[in-house]
C-alpha cells in the first residue's frame, strides 16, 4: 500500500532523478536539512534584497526615466558618477568616511573586548545580568531618539553639559558650532550605543573556552593578566579578523542615522562629520535623480569589494589559516 501511495502522489521529477543519481548530495541534504531550513529565511531575504536588485546597477549608467523603465532608459556612460569627484567636498567626505569609520572599528573592537573581559569576570552573578542589560538597552534605541539625547546634553542654553561646566565657571560652549569636538562626540555616542551588543559575541566565545586551559595556567602560576593575554585573546583573534574584514568591506558606507541625526545635520559641523552618505543625501534630495544615487551606491560597493580583497590578501600573507577565503 505504501508503494501505491508513493507512485500516485509523487511523480518522479527530474530533480528526484538527479538526487538519486547523486547519493552523496542526497546524504548531505539529509544530514544538513534542519540547519539548511533554519537558514532558508535569511537566504531568501538575502536573495530578494541583495541579489535581485543587483541587476539594478545598470541604472547608474543611464538617464533613468520612470516611464521608459530600467531597460528603456538611455545609456549615458559614467556621467552619473561625475558629481562624486572633482570638488573639495570629494576629498573631505572621503577622508571623513575613512577616518571616522577606522576610528569606530578600532575603538569598537577594543571596547567590545574590554567590556567582554570585564563581564567574563563577573559572570553568573545578578550584577552581571544587570550590567549586561543596561549596556544592551541603547542598542535598541533609534538614532533619531539618540540624536535628541545628545542634544539634551549639548544644546547651548539648557544643555546638561554646559550647565555642568558652568559650575566650574566655564562659559557655555556652542557645541553644534564647533566641528573639532565632533569626531570624539561621535565615537563616544557610537560606543555607548553599540558596546552592549558588540561585546556579547566576544563574551559568548569566552564562555566557550575550555576551563582546562585556565586551570593548567593557574597551576603554572600564571597571573590573571597573563591568562587573558595568552589564553583568552588568542581565542578571540579569528572572530576579530572576520568581524574586522566585514567592517572594512563597509568602510565606505557610514551609519547614516548616526551622522545625520546625532549631528542634527548641522552645516557648521560638516568639515568633520560630512561623509559620503550624508553628502549624497544632501546633493540629491532635491534633484531626486535615481541614476546619480545609484552611481553613489555602486561606487561605495566597488570600493568596499576591493578593500575586502586587499584586507583578505594581507591576512593571508601573514597567516593563511586566518584568511576568510
Amino acid at each position, binding site marked *: 500500500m505504501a508503494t501505491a501511495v508513493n507512485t500516485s502522489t509523487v511523480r518522479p521529477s527530474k530533480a528526484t532523478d538527479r538526487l538519486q543519481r547523486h547519493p552523496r548530495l542526497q546524504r548531505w541534504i539529509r544530514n544538513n536539512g534542519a540547519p539548511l531550513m533554519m537558514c532558508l529565511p535569511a537566504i531568501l531575504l538575502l536573495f530578494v534584497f541583495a541579489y535581485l536588485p543587483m541587476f539594478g546597477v545598470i541604472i547608474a549608467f543611464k538617464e533613468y526615466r520612470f516611464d521608459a523603465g530600467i531597460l528603456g532608459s538611455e545609456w549615458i556612460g559614467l556621467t552619473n558618477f561625475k558629481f562624486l569627484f572633482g570638488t573639495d567636498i570629494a576629498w573631505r567626505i572621503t577622508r571623513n568616511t575613512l577616518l571616522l569609520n577606522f576610528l569606530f572599528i578600532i575603538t569598537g573592537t577594543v571596547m567590545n573586548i574590554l567590556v567582554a573581559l570585564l563581564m567574563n569576570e563577573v559572570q553568573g552573578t545578578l550584577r552581571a545580568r544587570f550590567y549586561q542589560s543596561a549596556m544592551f538597552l541603547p542598542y535598541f534605541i533609534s538614532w533619531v531618539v539618540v540624536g535628541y539625547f545628545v542634544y539634551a546634553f549639548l544644546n547651548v542654553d539648557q544643555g546638561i553639559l554646559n550647565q555642568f561646566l558652568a559650575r566650574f565657571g566655564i562659559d557655555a560652549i556652542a557645541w553644534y558650532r564647533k566641528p573639532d569636538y565632533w569626531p570624539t562626540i561621535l565615537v563616544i555616542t557610537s560606543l555607548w550605543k553599540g558596546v552592549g551588543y558588540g561585546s556579547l559575541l566576544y563574551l559568548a566565545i569566552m564562555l566557550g573556552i575550555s576551563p582546562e586551559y585556565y586551570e593548567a595556567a593557574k597551576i603554572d602560576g600564571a597571573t590573571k593578566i597573563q591568562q587573558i593575554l595568552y589564553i583568552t585573546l588568542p581565542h578571540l583573534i579569528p572572530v576579530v579578523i572576520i568581524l574586522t574584514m566585514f567592517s572594512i568591506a563597509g568602510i565606505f558606507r557610514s551609519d547614516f542615522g548616526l551622522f545625520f541625526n546625532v549631528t542634527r545635520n548641522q552645516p557648521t559641523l560638516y568639515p568633520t562629520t560630512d561623509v559620503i552618505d550624508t553628502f549624497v543625501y544632501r546633493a540629491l534630495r532635491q534633484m531626486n*535623480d535615481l541614476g546619480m544615487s545609484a552611481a553613489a551606491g555602486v561606487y561605495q560597493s566597488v570600493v568596499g569589494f576591493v578593500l575586502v580583497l586587499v584586507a583578505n590578501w594581507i591576512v593571508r600573507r601573514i597567516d593563511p589559516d586566518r584568511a576568510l577565503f
Partner: protein
Amino acid sequence: MSDPKMARISRRNFLKWTGTALAASGLAACAPAAPQAQQGAATTGAAATDALVYYYGTRANFKDVAVVQEAVSKFLMDKIGVGIQLNPLDWSTYSDKMQLKNAASEKYDMAFTANWTNDYYNNVKNGTLLDITDSLQKLAPTLWKDVNPGAWDSARVQKKVYAAINQQTWTANFGPRCPKQYADKYGLDWDKINKLEDMEPFWEAVKNGEPADVKAIGCDDKGSGAIWGVYYKAGVIGGSSFGVINLDDKDAKAMPDWEFQPWVDTLKMVKKWNDAGYYGKEPWPAADFAAKERSAKYASHFHNNKPGVEAEMKSITSFDWTAKILAKNYLENGPAATMTGVNKQTTNADACIKYFEQVNTDKDLYNMLCYGIENKHWVWKDKEKGVIGLPDGVTAENSPYNPNSDWMFGNQFNAYYTDPSKVGAWEATRKLNEEATPSPVVGFVFDQTPVKTELAQIQAISEEYKTLGTGFFDLDQALPEYTKRAKDSGADKVIEEINKQLDSWRASK
C-alpha cells in the same frame, strides 16, 4: 510506512511547502499595506474598478475618510459616472511614498503634486504625469477660464500643462508676524513699520525685557528666519538653489546670488541683527520650531502673511497674532505650489479632467472633501456668509474628519470659512493674486539635465551656508569662501546654461 523513500519524500514535500509558504509570506510583507480608505471602500461597496484612485497628503489618519469617500463617490457617480478612492498619506512620508509609487509605475489616477512635495517638475521629467493641456480646455472649460493665463504659465513645462491648479494664495506676502502679547507689551505700532529696519527698537526692547530663551526673531538651523528674496526683489530660478534674477527687470539675466548686491546688503544687515543678539545664541533645530512657536518663544518671525493669517495662527497656537506685509506683491511660481496631476498610467484620463471641473466649480462637492458631511463633521454657523463650525461635542482634535487643508483639493476660494474673522479673506486673496506683478521669469522652467553634476555639487555646498541668511556666519570669511567653492564646482557654467535656456524661452514666447 516503513518504506525509507516515503519518509524522504514527505520530508522533501515538507521542505517544498514550507519554502513556498515562507517565500509567499516574505513577498506579501513586501507589498504595501492597503491604505485604510481602500479597505473602507471594499466594505462600503463602492466598486473599485470604476473609482478614480486619488493620492494626497494628510496631517493625521482620520477614521471617517471612508464615510466621506462614499458620499463623494455617490455625488460623482451622478455627475460624471465614476466614483473615487481617497488615499490620504501622511505628509511626513508623502513625497517619498509617491516617488516610490512613480518609480515602480504603480497604476493610480490622480495625485497631489507641487514644487515643494512630490515634485511636479521631476514628475514631468520622469514621465509620471500626463499632458492635459488640451483636455483641460475641452473637458474643464470653467476651471480653465477661472485660473488666469499667467498662472497656467507657471504650470507649463515646454508649453504643456501637466496638472490642474488649485487656486489659493499665490503671492509671497512677505513680512513679520508677531504674537500679540509681545507686540502689545513693547508697543509695536505697524503704522510706523515700513521696512524691516524699523523693527529694530522693538527687537532691542524684547531682547532686554524677555528671558534669554525668547528670541526677538525666530529662526531655525535650516534657514527659516532669513529674509525672503521678494523683499530685496530677487527672484529665484527654480531648481538652481543659487541663481537669481532682478524681479523688476523685464529682461533680467540670471546671476549667482553673491553677485546680486541687494542680497549681499541684506546679509550684512542680518549679520548686524545677529551680532546684536536678536537671533539668539544658536538657531533652534528645525524639528523643534513648531513647538517653540506654540509656546511663544519668539517675538517675531518672517513669513507669508496672507489674508486671514492671524486667525490661522491662532487656531494653531491658541493665542492672538498680528502681522504686516512688507514686500511688493509679486507673482512667481506660487500657482505651482498646489496642483493635482493625472498619472500617465491611468486608463480613465477624461474622467479625471471632468473631476477637476467638478471639484473646482461645485461648492458642495469641494467642501465635502475639505470638511466632511454636514451635521456630522460640521454645522452651519452663518449660512449667509458661508461660515461653518464644528458640531457640539466635536473639537478640532477629536474630529473624525478634519484634514484642514482645503488648498489641496481644489479652488480654495470656494471653501467655507471656519472662523467669522476670516470672512472676506478669499476675496482679498484673489485680489492680491490678480494685482500681483508677474515675475519676469514666471513660467520659465529650468531644465537641470545638462548641468546636473555641477548642480548636485553646488546644492551640497549651498546647504552648508543655510544660516548665512540668519547671520550665524562670519560674513567676511564665509561669503568669499562660499563663492569660491561654488565657482570651483561649476557655478559659472550653470548660470550660463540658465541664461541660454532663458533666452530661448523668451524667444519662443
